[in-house]
């Protein structure tokens, strides 16, 4: 078996080189020709970099500081404090996150390009100071001065003196990470379920009656050992941190899969008993399609808000998971349709006739050819996930209230319409990002599916 397999893969490579046609290269070329999509792609890379480095470009902690002979890199360091020995023998402790850096008598100091933290306030400039308005700076002696350019609030301030630009940059990280990570969850689910539904349909996945029943019992057991028993561990993790929630969930999932696998093996044995030997079809397609139908028939925003209201702690990770779990339907539908088409193609029949395992055919042979529509759906999905997140924070639900996001900034702007900068800039940011992803989706669709291009 292994030999044949090797042959067929070599053959593929050979064919490719003979025809000198690489679909990926072709698609990339097509994509590049689509100017709006290509520029969107470039802007997106820029935004992603901005999101990644946002903790060091919009923070009140300086990048570099030399104070009393001690060199510090507060924004870049993992530690939060530094001990400085004075000449008279006393020690001075500088806590990075609460120190008044702007008033420090440092020998030399380099601030971040936007020298404000998104969640901290500048009391001197509280009360909606416009970007072009008079901003003041009060030095250590208490003298009021004109704001130096390096400390200026370029996009104005909010009610309590929050720096809007810093909030925007921080919001980029939150929006992009929610959009991308929730779509990661959604695409795993969507592609996996869509592939199974499309490939097997209702009457192709055959198994013995015994194996099916054992598997069904196995799901109950797996759920019990994976989630029921561990429910308090998981719910306690919510009080801890987003990371430990993820860890607990992953442990639960591993136990779930392990138990299921044991029952799968058991099912094989049970299936050999003559009473349970009768073969049955598993209606994979019906199950997946019904699940999709249920999810899309619910009002998405209300569903997401009410699920996130259950969680004791509001956190961004919760929101990601909830958005991911509710928005995979579009991806699943497209993947399913693609698999329906592909599963009847000759090369799949050939692979089947060679006796390859079904899962190998699905994920190795069929999936690469079915990914194009899913990819398009993912690009649109990221756009809608970002929209959902910003709508939720606009309504003041979903994300923790202290987090500065595009939606929450915009919401703050509703209190004071004369503060146009609180409405225009965050709105523009959302609009731009959503447009970029939509353009990207269209570009991908045109590039990956030449049949659609007219």
């Amino acid at each position: 078996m292994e030999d044949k397999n090797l042959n067929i893969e070599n053959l593929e490579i050979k064919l490719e080189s003979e025809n000198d046609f690489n679909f990926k290269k072709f698609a990339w070329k097509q994509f590049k020709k689509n100017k709006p999509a290509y520029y969107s792609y470039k802007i997106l890379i820029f935004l992603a970099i901005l999101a990644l480095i946002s903790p060091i470009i919009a923070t009140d902690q300086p990048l570099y500081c030399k104070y009393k002979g001690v060199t510090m890199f507060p924004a870049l360091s993992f530690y939060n404090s530094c001990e400085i020995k004075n000449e008279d023998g006393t020690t001075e402790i500088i806590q990075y996150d609460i120190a008044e850096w702007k008033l420090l008598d440092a020998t030399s100091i380099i601030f971040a390009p936007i020298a404000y933290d998104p969640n901290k306030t500048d009391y001197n400039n509280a009360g909606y100071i416009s970007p072009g308005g008079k901003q003041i700076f009060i030095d250590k002696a208490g003298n009021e001065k004109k704001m130096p350019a390096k400390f200026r609030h370029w996009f104005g301030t909010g009610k309590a003196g929050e720096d809007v630009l810093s909030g925007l940059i921080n919001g980029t990280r939150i929006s992009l990470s929610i959009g991308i990570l929730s779509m990661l969850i959604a695409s795993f689910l969507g592609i996996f379920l869509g592939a199974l539904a499309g490939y097997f349909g209702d009457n192709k996945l055959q198994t013995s009656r015994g194996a099916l029943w054992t598997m069904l019992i196995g799901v109950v057991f797996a759920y019990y050992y994976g989630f029921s028993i561990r429910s308090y561990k998981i719910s306690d993790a919510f009080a801890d941190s987003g990371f430990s929630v993820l860890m607990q969930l992953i442990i639960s999932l591993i136990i779930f899969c392990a138990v299921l696998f044991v029952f799968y093996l058991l099912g094989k044995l049970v299936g050999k008993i003559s009473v349970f030997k009768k073969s049955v079809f598993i209606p994979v397609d019906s199950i997946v399609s019904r699940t999709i139908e249920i999810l899309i028939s619910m009002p998405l925003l209300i569903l997401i808000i009410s699920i996130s209201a259950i969680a004791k702690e509001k956190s961004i990770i919760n929101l990601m998971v909830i958005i991911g779990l509710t928005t995979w339907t579009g991806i699943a539908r497209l993947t399913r349709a693609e698999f329906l088409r592909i599963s009847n193609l000759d090369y799949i029949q050939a692979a089947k006739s060679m006796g390859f395992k079904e899962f190998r055919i699905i994920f190795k042979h069929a999936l690469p050819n079915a990914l194009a529509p899913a990819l398009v759906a993912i690009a649109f999905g990221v756009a809608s996930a970002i929209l959902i997140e910003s709508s939720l924070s606009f309504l003041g639900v979903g994300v923790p209230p202290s987090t500065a996001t595009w939606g929450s900034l915009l919401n703050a702007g509703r209190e004071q319409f004369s503060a146009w900068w609180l409405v225009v800039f965050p709105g523009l940011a959302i609009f731009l990002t959503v447009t970029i992803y939509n353009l990207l989706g269209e570009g991908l669709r045109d590039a990956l599916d030449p049949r659609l291009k007219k």
Partner: protein
Amino acid sequence: MLQYILKRIFIFIPTLIAITLLGFIISVNAPGDAVGRMVSSVQGNGDMGAQSVGIEIKKKEWREKLGLDLPIFYFSLTSLSRPDTLYKIYDKNEKEALDRLIDKYGNWEQIEMYHNSLTKFYLNQERFTIDTNKIKQYDKNAVLEALNQLKFEASALKASYEKVVINAKMEKVSNLLNTYSFLTPFKSDFEKVKQNYSSIEKNVSVWKNYIPRIAFYGYKNQYHRWLFGDGGKFSKGLLLHGDFGISYVTRQPISDVIYSKIGWSLFFSMLSVILAYLISIPIGVKAAAKRGSRFDKSSSIILFMLYSMPSFWLATLLIMTFANTDVFSWLPASGVKPALGYPDGASFLEMVKISVPYIILPAICYTYSSFAFLSRTMRVAMLDVVGQDYIRTARAKGLSEKKVIWKHGLKNALLPIITIFANVFPAAIGGSVIIESIFTIPGMGSESIYAIQNNDYPMIIAVLTITGFLTLVGYLISDILYAIVDPRISYK
């Protein structure tokens, strides 16, 4: 065809049940204490003891009324160590504490004994009245203070499950008991509590937690009651009578709330669909007919931008510009009618006239996104049709371009956008959460948000369930419409 419809309806039922289940699961896990909220406003002033007894009775009444004294579902997946009767403990914290104790020690017999002795200890305090005249050695206030403290510690003990916390509380209680001689009647009770607690720690049987068990509760459960009612005593049931229960906020039947709120949502979604069709069909057709023209290109760009525009941003911008005394104070910013209501004796026409300025901004926000989507769909559908043979035939016959496009082409291009009409009614139930809450329109959307913020879960489930149901019906109708309009489609 009939067979197809029957088959669809048949598939419909399990989907609908799953939708009700999903809503139900959300509501069961919802935070907040419904019974406590129902009772809270009834509280009056009066004697402490009598009041707390009165509250307990009221709470019991409401529990029965809301059906919260029943098990949740027909069956539950539980462990060998857990009893079937845990649902009978009403207090959520107490229940969780017990469940966590089981989770830790796995010996229900001992835990039950501990819990019972603790409850007895607590109840004896509740019933205890001190003749303050008899106790001369202490100040009257100090006596009451000590008793209250004891009660507080005892009730806190009922809700604790961590060893450290329990030990600390127990120490506090024994300190109290030792300090005040008038508290001696409780000593024996407390000794029992302590004994039972140590016996929990001695007889650990954690292995019982690892053996799953399915507990059956029969049809007397919350879900069954919600669906089928309890024989008309408190609930008539959702399936036969459309009874969604009582709102936790207003204490009115949910159906009344929905009835009073749905009007505006329905109005706006109908209006927006009609407007969207009126604008998008001509634009889409014209863009497709003159493909590549300047009109096509510019409309494409504008539509695309509108499509990506977040509705809450547009809404805020519109209010900021047209309902702002600093810029243009042309239109009102919120509501659907003047704050003081319509003037007395206003005729319907006058009422409409008064309301129109209020409706303009929300209507724009309601319409633009579906209009952008519809136009784009229309254009693609039309492009598809224009390339077909029969259009060429029509042209070859010498028909005018106008006639070809508008008469022969349009009919078939309309097919894909029929589907969208089926979404009007479900959209009305959910309402547009964002637009309604920005413009404070008294519709279903703002009601849903209000319900979520106030943990009014019966309302939320009602919204989820009705929307789900209507969407499914909408799909069915649009599929049937498709088959009627397009003879090429047959369902066999």
